[in-house]
């Protein structure tokens, strides 16, 4: 502890350089925490996905639709208890930059299927009774200031829904009761969208609840078999597999984001290491003087590593706080509703801080070794 003051004084020796090093570590930790948030978000969705729900989409691609007649076929499949369906709307709210998820749903069965969509009884009733009504997540409501009774006008973003604007009335504000339901979306009656659609009666995906999760795989196969060799072949998976597949469409995220994080960390390591080495080289005489006063090589080593740690952890704290402030800011909506539980959690903050400590130690090992192995007489002679 008595050396802490000495370490802090050394850190403040060159404020500009220290600040820049802190910022470089902060950027590394910020990126790391933000990228981890993306991966964690997908993992959380997969983990929270129900084992009793299976999702059916077109076998060719999710962007192709299916006829409503599929509903009855799926519902009649042995082991299926309930079915609902939804479409992606993709409308524009005032400006294309205002992106959030909009789903045309079959309201009664959808709310039955997803008890995680937490809605008061009054709001639910009002929503079900109003064909042009909609419900919005509380996060979305906060972001755009939506209140019950407000009108929301969406310009269709997909040609199939026509060219005329859609006007909705906010009938309820829901909360998310699970990681697989985000609070940044809007849901409205499928029929309202279908009325103006060309062609009509098209469904994006079906969700079926199965009685026994152990039978989910068998039931999925059974559903798909019924549409085999038809014009609308399907691909059914458990919700968990569907979510994982959705993430995989974006590529091998783990590897991609991991590589980016690693590259940033290694670059920062070199930057911080070079800075520390420069700082030690400038203090050759001081270190020789300290050795002359009786400081052991190990103590000098620890002091230099201590400096590296202080600078790097300061950067880690700044980076983690920035990540919490920016990534977690609901108003910024960085995930745009694609990742319901998107945010830098405490574990990521801790891992980010540990990473900064790792950078601090690794970046200062070589300079610390240089400093501790310094030949006192040579170092003193260099200046004298």
């Amino acid at each position, binding site marked *: 502890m*008595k*050396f802490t*003051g*000495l370490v802090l*004084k*050394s850190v*403040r*020796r060159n404020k500009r350089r220290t600040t820049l090093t802190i910022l470089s570590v902060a950027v590394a930790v910020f990126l790391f925490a933000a990228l981890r948030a993306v991966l964690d978000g997908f993992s959380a969705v997969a983990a929270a996905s129900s084992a009793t729900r299976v999702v059916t989409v077109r076998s060719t691609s999710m962007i192709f639709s299916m006829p409503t007649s599929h509903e009855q076929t799926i519902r009649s499949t042995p082991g299926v208890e309930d079915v609902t369906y939804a479409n992606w709307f993709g409308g524009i709210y005032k400006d294309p930059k205002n992106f959030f998820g909009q789903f045309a749903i079959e309201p009664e069965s959808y709310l039955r299927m997803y008890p995680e969509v937490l809605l008061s009884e009054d709001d639910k009733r009002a929503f079900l009774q109003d064909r042009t009504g909609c419900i919005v997540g509380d996060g979305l409501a906060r972001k755009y200031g939506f209140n019950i009774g407000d009108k929301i006008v969406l310009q269709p973003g997909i040609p199939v829904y026509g060219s005329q604007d859609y006007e909705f009335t906010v009938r309820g504000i829901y909360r998310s009761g699970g990681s697989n339901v985000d609070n940044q979306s809007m849901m409205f009656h499928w029929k309202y969208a279908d009325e103006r659609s060309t062609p009509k009666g098209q469904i994006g995906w079906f969700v079926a609840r199965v009685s026994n999760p152990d039978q989910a795989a068998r039931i999925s196969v059974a559903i798909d078999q019924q549409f085999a060799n038809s014009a609308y072949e399907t691909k059914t998976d458990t919700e968990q597999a569907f979510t994982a597949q959705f993430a995989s469409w974006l590529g091998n995220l783990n590897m991609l984001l991991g590589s980016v994080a690693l590259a940033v960390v290694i670059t920062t390591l070199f930057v911080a290491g070079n800075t520390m080495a420069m700082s030690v080289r400038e203090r050759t*005489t*001081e270190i020789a*003087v*300290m*050795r*002359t*006063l*009786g*400081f*052991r*090589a*190990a*103590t000098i080593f620890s002091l230099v590593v201590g400096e590296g740690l202080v600078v790097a952890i300061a950067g880690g704290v700044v980076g983690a706080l920035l990540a919490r402030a920016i990534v977690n800011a609901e108003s910024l909506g960085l995930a745009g509703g694609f990742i319901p539980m998107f945010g830098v959690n405490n574990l990521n903050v801790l891992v980010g801080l540990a990473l900064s400590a790792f950078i601090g130690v690794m970046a200062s090992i070589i300079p610390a070794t240089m400093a501790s192995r310094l030949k*006192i*007489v040579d170092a*003193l002679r260099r*200046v*004298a």
Partner: protein
Amino acid sequence: MALIELRDVTKTYRRDAEEIGVLDRVTISVEEGEFLALMGPSGSGKSTLLNLLAGIDQPTRGAITVGSTEIGRLSEGALASWRARHIGFIFQLYNLIPVLTAFENVELPLLLTNLSKKQRRDHVMTALGIVGLTERASHYPRQLSGGQEQRVAIARAVVTDPTLLLADEPTGDLDAKAGAEVLTLLQRLNREYKKTIVMVTHDPHAAERASRILYLEKGTLSQHQPVGVGVTT
């Protein structure tokens, strides 16, 4: 009783294939409480001798004993601890740490002891009191004159109450007035506080303040001036 004994100390450096002799079989003894000045032209080996006494360099041959310790036998770590306990070193260019105040600079060697914060503070203020700089305790080196910096450096050297004070050209970077003040201070430390001092200097006026003067020439002790008691070559 001799505090320092150098017996046939030889120091050579190797530069590529060439071996350069710096000290050649030097034998000196210094009594406890003595103020010894080492004089000699540049390259005569006087600073090397001082470094050997401080344990920051090792002789090629011969033995150096300070008190009852033959310092050549100590490991690197033990030597560092020995320096912390027994040596106070005063440099020509003061070598204060620029980011530390005068107080913190003087406190630096005490961080290696087990003294409490309050005890360290008392020791530092006493040392700064001896050099007459208590009111400058919170000043940084850049806020001090050269003479004041050297006095802080002296306070740093004496704060641990070392066995031996070693001064390498302590007035070499000072004007005449500041140099005289520093020499008076060293004399006071020798006479009032019974500190044994070995000082390297070019300046004959500075050397006159010492109780004995030794001359080094080309790595050996020379007899140009009367040599003191206990010196053999």
